[in-house]
């Protein structure tokens, strides 16, 4: 139960973050979507042993987090929560790939560890960029952006409705869950059958609600198509953001900044 409560609190907090007004929020959502996707593709385009060239890319999430005034604690906490999958799956790399790749002094580092580190860095980069995107835009605007980029409106309307009724349904589910928990003894009553019954009656309530919402929509003239009067318009700032970042990403991809700096720093030119 604490699980669900904390999850909903997280969602609520992210929702509040995404409805503030910061320089990042003022950028057109389409632009932010495109630059973030480009960023992720660039990060993933490196070979699995390329560690150093990934690091300069940290500038993108860093700037986004700064512009959007996203609390760093929040990003770190989310990263930690979602990391187990990547950590666990990536762990096989050092186990299976033992060929030495790098020597620092007398320390021999196998390729497996290098690629594992690469996985972790990719993870941090892509997830933090995604979080900054959502915290700096909000689901509502992301959907508007998607729709104006050509995503079918059936889908974007669906995302918005889902998000809207999420809170209502979780409350109903939590209420039923609590009632169930209060009436079960030990583990009895928490098993599959009770769960099935609970979900069953929840789904019926959901179907009833769907009907009532539909009636309410029809009473206000709904004909199957959800319309909006607000259209997004690109400003100078948006175009600058887009071209600027695409340029930076292209340059970082083409030139090994880390290598150059490292060569300059260690005096070992190539």
């Amino acid at each position, binding site marked *: 139960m604490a699980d669900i409560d904390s999850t909903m609190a997280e969602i609520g907090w992210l929702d509040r973050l995404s409805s503030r007004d910061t320089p990042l929020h003022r950028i057109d959502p389409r632009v932010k979507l495109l630059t973030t996707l480009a960023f992720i593709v660039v990060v993933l385009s490196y070979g699995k042993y390329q560690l150093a060239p990934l690091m300069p890319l940290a500038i993108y999430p860093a700037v986004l987090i700064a512009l959007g005034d996203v609390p760093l604690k929040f990003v770190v906490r989310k990263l930690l929560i979602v990391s187990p999958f990547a950590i666990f799956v990536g762990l096989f790399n050092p186990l299976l790939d033992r060929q030495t790749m790098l020597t620092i002094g007398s320390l021999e580092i196998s390729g497996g560890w290098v690629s594992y580190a690469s996985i972790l860095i990719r993870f941090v980069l892509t997830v933090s960029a995604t979080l900054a995107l959502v915290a700096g835009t909000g689901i509502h605007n992301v959907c508007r952006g998607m729709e104006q980029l050509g995503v079918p409106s059936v889908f974007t309307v669906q995302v918005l409705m889902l998000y809207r009724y999420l809170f209502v349904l979780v409350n109903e589910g939590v209420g039923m869950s609590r009632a169930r928990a209060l009436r079960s003894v030990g583990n009895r009553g928490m098993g599959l059958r009770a769960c099935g019954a609970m979900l069953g009656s929840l789904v019926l309530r959901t179907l009833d609600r769907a009907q009532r919402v539909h*009636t309410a929509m029809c009473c*206000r003239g709904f004909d199957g198509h959800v319309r909006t009067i607000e259209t997004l318009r690109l400003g100078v700032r948006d175009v600058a953001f887009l071209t600027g970042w695409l340029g930076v990403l292209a340059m970082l991809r083409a030139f090994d900044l880390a290598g150059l700096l490292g060569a300059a720093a260690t005096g070992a030119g190539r």
Partner: protein
Amino acid sequence: MSHHLVEAKDVRYDYSDGTRALCGVSFRITHGESVAIVGANGAGKSTLLGHLSGCLLPGAGTVQVGDTILTRKTLPIIRRTVGMVFQDPDDQLFMPTVSADVAFGPINLGLPAEQVRSRVEKALGTVGMSHVAHRPPYRLSGGEKRAVAVATVLAMDPAILVMDEPSSNLDPQARRRLIELLGTFTHTKIIATHDLDMALDLCDRTIVLRRGEVAADGPTADILRDESILTPCGLEKPLSLQSCPICSQ
């Protein structure tokens, strides 16, 4: 003024599982009247409201709003004239933000963007909810949701307001604010409610339903004092008309 008339003639309605919800309901409500529909649970209040707002079609009998008789074809016209406020505001607030919800109706009416915006502003201003225009509905309190739900209906500029239990789940001050707000409306008001004190405050006329039939129809002050009507219908006197528990006056 016939375009503000609401008339039911011997309306009957059965649910698909056979339950008889309305067994011949007839009444006539004229422009500007404020009518309370009261009755026990299951008496048929919500069903009747469904007919008046164009959500249900009568099995027999007619419902007339203005000059239009309710049929499948005239549904859109009726829905434009009658604004329905539902019992659960969550059913009525389905858009991502408050202003999107209030704009939903006018946009569907085909109004141009500027007019939509001005209607939204006006409606939110009337209910006192302008400050939450950009908030999503799940971040509103019960009273705020109810007020916004009223705004979504007002934005369509209906002549007749139909409300299903508007004061339910409201804390006392929110309830008082709602009653005051509704008191300022000059629309025809038809309110189904258990809140007999609100009926006394707001409505000049009361129709009492019992098992799908009209048990009484007359001035609120008279009906809500008459226990011979109230008791068989599962009701009792509103608190403000009951004698003081201390001095029995």
